């Protein structure tokens, strides 16, 4: 069966919680477990038999990094991959509706839609088989997973029939408990979806025509009728009408909203590498650094043999790591240099940054409760009670950390040269 995949990559106004890292590179290209975030999606899609084309959909302006990535990805995965740029942020349904002809071209009988800012096992083949077994020929499948009762309120909640898995009720971020089954942001649609999106579009156009000066009161708060959201505008309406089904997975899944969740997602993907890409995991070798747990090291990185790396460490292109360095639960982006005896914990070290000798750069992880199998990573706000919440330390690009200082729970913006220790601060 001919298939397509659409990956929603958003645009600069989205993903602001990923700053300052998103100043340098669009969030979907941020490396997670050594490869760009969205490459994990592309790999999963390319593995599904019958996949004809992968479309990236977003409202970023044409970007050199994005173009280079697409060219490289096409060569590696041997499948056409294109970027479709929305003329404005059209919402998760508005974009695919706008480009429906492109998506369906070539006779695609079904297509996946994936949000770029999630990390997952992407059980796409299983979703396809599930969709063929359940429901009528033109039904749609949402990938769902289980959250705990409190955290479920932060996601789209799905109530499904226990036998048929038909979605009876869908609510996005309710304020009271509805269901523990949440929307993973991965969908399988047939061309019939566009009819339903079209209906929403028509309705919104009519509303706007009726009250052109009261745009704020229209259902989606925008002046444009073409801004349509899958979750609030389409799924909520489709629930209970025999068209929408949920495929529940127990595989790993997380949103990637903040820098802290990038480190958590790295850990999940690095774990997966032992099955899918064992060649990406560093091994202990004589003359090489000491590796603990799952560690990714780019082939061009230069690591002293007395360094101790891991668990959950990704070392980028051209990084140098000096003698006696300790790195744990961190991402070191390309070109960075860690001098002798430094200690880097729960940190993202930005591109081309330098950390001086004996410096300690440390953040606080925001991992989900390990004792709760359904706990998800919290998206904490940056401040609580007027103080910065302890979180992952982020060094922006080209930051210089002098020798012998401590940087704790802080965010340092790009090109900053620090002169002393800092804790619990944002350095502009």
């Amino acid at each position, binding site marked *: 069966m001919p298939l397509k995949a659409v990956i929603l990559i958003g645009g600069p106004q989205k993903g602001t919680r990923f700053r300052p890292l998103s100043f340098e590179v669009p969030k979907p290209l941020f490396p997670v477990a050594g490869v760009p975030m969205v490459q994990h999606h592309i790999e999963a899609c390319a593995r599904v038999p019958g996949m004809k084309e992968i479309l990236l959909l977003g409202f970023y302006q044409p970007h050199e990094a994005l173009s280079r990535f697409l060219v490289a990805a096409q060569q590696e995965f041997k499948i056409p991959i294109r970027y479709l740029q929305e003329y404005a942020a059209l919402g998760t349904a508005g974009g695919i509706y706008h480009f429906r002809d492109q998506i369906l071209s070539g006779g695609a009988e079904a297509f996946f839609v994936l949000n770029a800012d999630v990390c997952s096992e992407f059980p796409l083949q299983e979703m396809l088989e599930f969709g063929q077994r359940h429901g009528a020929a033109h039904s749609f499948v949402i990938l769902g997973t289980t959250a705990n009762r409190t955290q479920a309120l932060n996601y789209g909640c799905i109530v499904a029939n226990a036998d048929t898995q038909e979605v009876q009720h869908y609510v996005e971020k309710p304020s009271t408990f509805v269901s523990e089954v949440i929307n993973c942001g991965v969908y399988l649609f047939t061309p019939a979806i566009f009819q339903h999106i079209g209906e929403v579009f028509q309705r919104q156009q009519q509303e706007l025509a009726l009250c052109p000066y009261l745009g704020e009161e229209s259902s989606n708060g925008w002046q444009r009728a073409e801004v349509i959201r899958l979750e609030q505008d389409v799924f909520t309406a489709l629930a209970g009408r025999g068209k929408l089904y949920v495929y529940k997975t127990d595989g790993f899944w997380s949103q990637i909203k903040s820098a802290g969740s990038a480190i958590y997602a790295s850990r999940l993907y690095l774990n997966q590498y032992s099955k899918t890409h064992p060649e990406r995991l560093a091994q202990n070798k004589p003359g090489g650094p000491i590796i603990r747990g799952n560690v990714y090291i780019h082939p061009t990185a230069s690591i002293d043999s007395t360094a101790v790396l891991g668990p959950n460490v990704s070392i980028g292109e051209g990084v140098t790591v000096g*003698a*006696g*360095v*300790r790195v*744990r639960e961190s991402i070191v982006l390309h070109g960075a240099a860690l001098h*002798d*005896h430094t*200690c880097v*914990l729960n940190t993202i070290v930005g591109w081309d940054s330098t950390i001086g*000798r*004996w410096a*300690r750069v*440390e953040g606080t992880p925001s991992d989900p409760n390990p004792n709760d199998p359904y706990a998800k990573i919290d998206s904490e706000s940056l401040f609580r009670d007027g103080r910065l919440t302890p979180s992952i330390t982020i060094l922006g690009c080209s930051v210089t950390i002098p020798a*012998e200082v*401590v940087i*704790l729970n802080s965010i340092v913006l790009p090109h900053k040269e620090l002169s002393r220790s800092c*804790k619990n601060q944002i350095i502009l």
Partner: protein
Amino acid sequence: MRALILVGGFGTRLRPLTLSRPKPLVEFCNKALLLHQLEALRQAGVSRVVLAVSYMSEALEAAMREQEQRLGLRISLSHEKEPLGTAGPLALARELLAEGEEPFFVLNSDVICEFPFAALARFHRQHGGEGSLVVTRVEEPAKYGVVVSEADTGRILRFVEKPRVFVSNKINAGLYIFSPGILRRIQLRPTSIEKEIFPAMAQEGQLYAMELQGFWMDIGQPKDFLTGMCMYLQALRAQHPEKLHSGPGVVGNVLVDPSAKIGANCVIGPNVTIGAGVVVEDGVRIKRCTVLEGARIRSHSWLESCIVGWSCSVGQWVRMENVTVLGEDVIVNDELYLNGANVLPHKSITESVPEPRIIM
């Protein structure tokens, strides 16, 4: 000559170190505090020392016997059953002190300086008054009790506790010499020498002040212990530079016991004291610290302004700063950060201490 050292009680301000040893036996720059004072007294001709303690300690008694032999001094203990303040102990030791029929020294056990005992004795005999005390110049006299004296004779006019306007920049350094007559003034009850005895003596013109040359510090609490260490090492550099350590990776004034081992690629100093049997592994950076006997600092760690207690084990990639004090036999796990932690003996630290606090 004779001397009385006011040792006092539990030394609570220097906890957690004083939970394992009596304060006089805590090593300051690789030598027990008491020993610094005993050696200086011996040099000035003292042959009999009384330690006024309000807490009996077998460790102190054993150490005393050992030093008696070594130094050729007689050392006695005067045990206060109830706290007698700063003057009362003199009354308690009255017989021992008066027996010599000559002036005797009295000193606080917390004081470290270039002890001027011989000069003090000469000064005292010259003016013929009943008492002399050593004063030292400080930058912020309002934190202490201030001494006002005549510039030429040194005769003390009065004392002012913590003055609000500038009166004088000389404070009582806690070193005295008294003629036996002073014992008539002191009764066997809790008495403060500064508040009850000295003012009367000053009024009668019987009290004189001699200014101390060189450094002075009351090292009764960790922060001041470290400051005092820096001053002592600086004085050592001026007088006995051969006693200080030198070599690759040594910066500034560093004192290292011959039995200590320091690894490769370390940078030690300035202002570091490394005690007997200490092992410092590779790649360690230490600044402004005292590391007591038997401790081990594992590789790649970074320490500044800390006191590491006896037999401690500090893990790899540990960062300790801001007057972190580890009591005896504390274990700090790898990769932790201790900022101003005050850790009681025999404790294992498994989590970072990012803000100053006491770990019991």
